């Protein structure tokens, strides 16, 4: 159980990718859109990306570790 618990943080990545594949397939199968509809969808995606950029810029990386020179 302890080993399974350690694996748990990885699990959210799998549904994320499944939803990405679904979203891409839905884009590929979307019937022809008007220019207005296309612009509206791209505007929404751009807003999401702006949000993501802010999140990535604010993301705190792990603290650096001191490496053993004799290792």
């Amino acid at each position, binding site marked *: 159980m302890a080993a399974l618990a350690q694996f748990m943080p990885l699990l959210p990545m799998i549904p994320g990718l499944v939803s990405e594949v679904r979203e891409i397939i839905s884009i590929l199968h979307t019937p022809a859109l008007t220019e207005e509809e296309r612009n509206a969808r791209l505007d929404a*995606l751009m807003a999401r990306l702006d949000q993501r950029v802010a999140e*990535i810029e604010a993301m705190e990386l792990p603290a650096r570790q001191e490496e053993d020179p004799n290792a």
Partner: protein
Amino acid sequence: MHRNRKSWVCLVLVVLLIAGCASGGDKSYKGLAITAVTLDNLAGQMQAVNGVFKQKCNVEKSLTPKQCNGFVDFGEKFKKLYPSAVGLWKSSRTVSDTAVQGQADAVVNSLITELVKWGSVVGYDVLTQLKK
């Protein structure tokens, strides 16, 4: 457990294949939309992998300093390249330039490839611990 790691890598490859096929032609909207979805998801995946590394490097101390510092190097690179890739995506949308979009795709693909590598580093260590 091993099957889950494999399916994660397979899904990334499928995404790359689909994105590559769609952006190859003149379907500029679909190409742009797919690159944006991939960029969006890439950020989420990076945050998730970063969370695992933080836990294992700074709390559990279950990874080597070399592994942790290697991921930090990648993370610093990611923090510089991700906004650039989004900037390229915005430029390619504004000027409808497929060459610029290709540059954005190239940055995204290189980041995904490296992120998969770091994800599997964490997965490998989990499997090693399971065998103990």
